[in-house]
């Protein structure tokens, strides 16, 4: 009896499809397949019909088809089989078990579950969204009621409680909304240039008062800061830190500590960095059981100390999701009564370095620094020194005025005033407007402050402050702020997008009878390095053009209304001249008359374009470029 017959006797009668395989060198070949297997693949080799990956696994010595308990499914002609492999003598036997019904049923259940989950998410999100509007009305109306004069104490107490409760409800709604957006993939990380200084400042303005209210000691520790400006989603990044910090504050009893530490370290890829941050507290901590669930939505630890504190159990889930959306990781360590420590690592791209440009523009300029806090003043002065700027320090208002007076008799001048928010014995809101008046509208006055600018902006802008530099002070921030007021920055700003406005080597003829208009045009056009000849009427323009060699002028700018000969006649005369470029020279009309018909008349007379008066630099330059560029091309 040969091998095949033997196999047929043993396996041939089995109703399930069976393959007998021989394995060698990690590959399989079919030794025998029974009738049921033949029927399944119309007499072909069944092994050829199963996925390549599975064949490899069947050849594997360990014969592990599945990872863990997961069955391996094989799809054949609309049927689903579960493969059951085992070792028999020297062969690998593989049985096919038809599980189509079971599989389909499971798949349906799964689909239903996915649909139901989606429906839940969208229901939650719609619902919270719709509740938010009337909720806003309740909160707003409560505020309005609280602001009314002479409300009875009892009523104001009730209103106060409504305010607190509706505030909680609103934050709950917002969190549910955020969570459902995360689940449905609707939150996108929107990167922009973020100044670390701004980010930290904004975080601190929220956290510090919270910590103070909880009688906690809050501290910020900065390690190496390899880059101060990052490409990041500032709103979401702030949300991450505020979530962590507000939790730390909430779960730390009075007298405890909360600490935020941060480093920006260079990453291996040039231009990238990663942020390493830690939020540590000395609060109530978490049990080791809960530690595993801290990032799961709607989970809160069941204990009395926690139950007293408002929360949805969503904050940490949202935080983790946001960190992961940014490509980062978050980890937590905690022990009951010993505090909690969250550690974050998030990668970022660094922004393009602009600092060297800033330093070039600021180098050697003199700043008046007004600050009564000697230690802080020294730090600021050191930083200005690093920017190669000169600093005069004043610690009182009178000293500042003396320095200003001294300066007005010297041949140097102050580039800007940097001032602290408070100076002893002087009302800054009265003092600063006086300085503004003295130094003129273009003199930059900048305020250094730890407080929220939004709260102060109104008052201080009125007092003549141009801008605000947040503390803690960062060098790039300081240099960028100061740079904005340099003539270089103004020029760069004006020329932004129009760096091509340079017509070096181009010569134009300007025909304009009004002397002041000629002056204005000369000034305007001169800025783009044009050479300009002027004439006072059309006749002179024709003459001048006739006398010059061909291609001497690149363009003629022509007023329409002129004595002796107007612009239209002059244009016709030029076009009729018998010179080489009389037909080609671009002639552009300049007039306030922008009637369709008259614009058409000037084109009919042979002009190429029309620029409206009063001259708008942008329009003049783009028209010039149109023709000068074209001619060159």
């Amino acid at each position, binding site marked *: 009896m040969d091998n095949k017959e033997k196999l047929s006797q043993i396996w041939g009668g089995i109703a399930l499809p069976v393959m007998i395989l021989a394995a060698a060198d990690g590959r399989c070949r079919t030794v025998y397949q029974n009738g049921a297997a033949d029927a399944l693949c119309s007499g072909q080799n069944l092994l050829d019909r199963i996925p390549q990956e599975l064949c490899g696994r069947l050849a594997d010595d360990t014969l592990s088809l599945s990872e863990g308990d997961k069955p391996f499914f094989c799809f054949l002609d609309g049927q689903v089989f579960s493969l059951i492999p085992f070792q028999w003598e020297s062969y690998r036997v593989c049985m096919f078990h038809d599980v189509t019904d079971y599989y389909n049923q499971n798949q349906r259940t799964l689909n239903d579950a996915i649909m139901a989950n989606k429906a839940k998410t969208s229901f939650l999100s719609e619902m919270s*969204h719709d509740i*938010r*509007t*009337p*909720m*806003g*009305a*309740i*909160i*707003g*109306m409560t*505020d*309005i009621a609280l602001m009314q004069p002479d409300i009875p104490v009892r009523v104001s107490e009730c209103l106060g409680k409504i305010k607190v409760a509706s505030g909680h409800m*609103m934050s709950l709604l917002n969190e549910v909304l955020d969570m459902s957006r995360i689940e449905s993939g609707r939150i996108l990380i929107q990167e922009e240039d973020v100044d670390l200084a701004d980010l930290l400042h904004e975080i601190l303005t929220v956290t510090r008062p919270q910590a103070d209210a909880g009688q906690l000691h809050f501290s910020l520790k900065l390690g190496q800061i390899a880059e101060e400006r990052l490409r990041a989603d500032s709103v979401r990044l702030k949300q991450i830190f505020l979530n962590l910090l507000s939790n730390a504050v909430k779960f730390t009893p009075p007298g405890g500590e909360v600490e935020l530490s941060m480093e920006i370290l260079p990453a291996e890829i040039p231009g990238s960095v990663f942020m390493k941050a830690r939020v540590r507290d000395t609060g109530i901590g978490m049990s080791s059981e809960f530690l595993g669930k801290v990032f799961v939505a709607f989970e809160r630890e069941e204990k009395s100390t926690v139950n007293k504190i408002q929360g949805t159990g969503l904050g940490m889930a949202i935080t983790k999701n946001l960190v992961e959306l940014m490509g980062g990781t978050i980890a937590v360590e905690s022990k009951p009564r010993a505090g909690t420590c969250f550690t974050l690592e998030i990668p970022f791209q660094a922004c393009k370095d602009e600092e060297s440009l800033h330093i070039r523009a600021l180098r050697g300029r003199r700043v008046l620094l007004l600050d009564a806090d000697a230690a802080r003043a020294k730090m600021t002065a050191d930083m200005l020194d690093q920017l190669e700027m000169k600093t005069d320090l004043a610690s009182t208002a009178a000293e500042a005025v003396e320095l200003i007076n001294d300066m007005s008799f010297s041949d140097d001048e102050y580039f800007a005033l940097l001032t602290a928010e408070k100076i002893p014995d002087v009302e800054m809101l009265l003092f600063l*407007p006086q300085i*503004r*008046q003295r130094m003129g*509208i273009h003199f930059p006055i900048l305020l250094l402050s730890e407080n929220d600018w939004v709260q102060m902006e*109104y008052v201080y*802008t*009125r007092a*003549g402050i141009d801008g605000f530099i947040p503390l803690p002070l960062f060098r790039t921030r300081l240099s960028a702020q100061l740079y904005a007021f340099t003539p270089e920055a103004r020029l760069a700003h004006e020329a932004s997008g129009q760096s091509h406005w340079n017509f070096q080597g181009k010569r134009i003829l300007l025909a304009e*009878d*009004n*002397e*002041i*208009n000629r002056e*204005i045009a000369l000034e305007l056009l001169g800025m783009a390095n044009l050479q300009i000849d002027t004439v006072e009427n059309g006749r002179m323009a024709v003459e001048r053009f006739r006398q010059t060699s061909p291609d001497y002028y690149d363009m003629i700018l022509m*007023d*329409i*209304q002129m004595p002796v000969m107007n612009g239209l006649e002059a244009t016709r005369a030029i076009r009729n001249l018998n010179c080489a470029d009389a037909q080609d020279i671009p002639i552009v009309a300049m*007039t*306030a*008359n*922008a*009637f*369709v*018909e*008259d*614009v058409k008349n000037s084109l009919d007379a042979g002009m190429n374009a*029309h620029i409206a*008066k*009063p001259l708008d630099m942008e329009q003049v330059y783009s028209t010039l470029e149109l023709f000068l560029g074209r001619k060159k091309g």
Partner: protein
Amino acid sequence: MKDYQTQYIANLTRAAQLGEIRAELSPDAEHFWEERQKNRAAIVRLVKENTSLLRANLFPVLDNIASASREEIKDLEEFALALIPGGRQLDVMLSYTIHNTLIAYARQWELRDLLIRELYHTAMAVYYLHTMIQDIAPERYRWKMQLLFGEAASYIKLYDEIEDPETRGYIHRSMANLALGYSSSPPATGKRKMETIRRSLQILTDPVFQAKTPSLPWDLYIYKSHQERTTSLSFLRSGGADAQTTREVMESAEYVRDRQKRDSERTGQPPSLRWSVVYESSQYHCGILTLEAFLKRLEEFYLSRDPSDYSPDGSYANLFLPAIYSQYVSQNRQYLQAKKEMISHMYRMMLRYVRNAPAQQMSVSLMRSIMDTFASFIEYPGGLQQKDLLLQMVVCRNPETFVYLQMTACVSRMLLERTIQEMPQLLLGVLGYDTVEEITAARQELADLAYGCGMFHDIGQLNFAKMTTMAGRIWFKEEQEIFRLHTKVGAAILARCESTQLYADAAAGHHCYFSGDGGYPDGYDRTEHPNQPIVDIVSIAASFNRLLDNNIDYTKEPLSLPQALEHIRLKAGSRFSPDLVRLLLEMEPELEEYLRDGRMQAYRLAFQYLKNEDPLP
């Protein structure tokens, strides 16, 4: 003001009067037509006179503005203001041109008070231009307006140095008007608007500022700012608002209502309907009223209006209310079934109101209300169709445009039939018909399509009715450019409703060149529109009719039939399809026959519509 300036304004007013449609004074269409022709000739004389007044007297001064005398500057200022008296838009573009030039003058001679004032007035003129096209080209003027208001407002820094109380007033007004640049969507702009109002109100309510310039109407400024804060609120419901904003809106709403009540008690007049509606709408947007309740309130307001009241409040009730009502229903379709009768009723009444309106009452802002209605027009089976209301609006705003459209429709249909007969292959692809047999079999359907496209291709003109009917001078280049937006306006309106959506391509593409190399609007791609052959037909028919009689620029001399055909012929292959041009030229006898009575027939139809109290089906 100088004599020419007074004369110019008088001419503008006269031209507007001559444009009034007074069908009730005519016994028959022939008489009506004769009257219109007579008036039109008079208007042309005024337009020519006004144009030369400006050419001879104004532009030379503007050209050399830097050397103008103080007296000339003062006259120019007065003239520019008189062109938009109390917000009535007699000639916004000219006013803008003058104010803008005065800015250059003020900068040149460093006249700060004049500069601030002119920045404000220029910005206001830009605002009026902005409102005309804000739905279709929201960014065209917005930045300019913000730049001007912003610069004027920035002088708040030098407040103490500026002594003139009037100039200080302009600073405050500019600051408040920065809010005008923000619409309610997207939510972010709604938010910016609220921040802008907050900043401005902070200063307006500051006792220090009030004490500095006691002569300014602080109350009025504050009141207006609160009013502004209660409009354009849809961002509140789209998640754009924080609790503070909602609270501020509600405060402002109460502030405005209290003030309305007080004024009403003092004068014995009922409170303004407009601000009552705005109040209710703020309650809805803040979450106090449900939409159901809010719509109910709107209905009550609507039913209590006076249908013959042409005061601002009356116009608001009769024209603007239907627009916002249908806007809310169209955004919340679940109410459609319950509210459709009400909506149809409003549309019908609206038409009646517009038909009976005295011409000088039809301000630009009311035209906007009409356009707003079409922007949210609701059509349903068995109800009023947008196409019928659109046509009637055209008839009662500008019968000549109706005549032009009617004739374009007829010529389009004639040309279509000719095409089916001679070159049906040109029409392959139209309405999905891919063979010559199918095209021939669908003759009637295609003829109807060509007729409808001709009838509605220029419907976007409604948005610019003021420019087309009462200009009183020839156009500026800038106006020509704005007017080109009529293609986009028309296409947007037509595409919204089933009864008109097939005509949208014709509205969008009838100014595009056949060669693909010219015309407007930018971005119109001929290859994207399967019905393009019909658009090409309408293009020719429209240009042809405009050459025979220009319904927009009255100063254009009408051409004879052979002249018009010659004009068309010259543009075969570039502007027009050479095949269609050939067919049109072959149709000369047929066209001659049609033109013998075609214009008068169209006029008779217009007249009949105008005389009929209820012309809607």
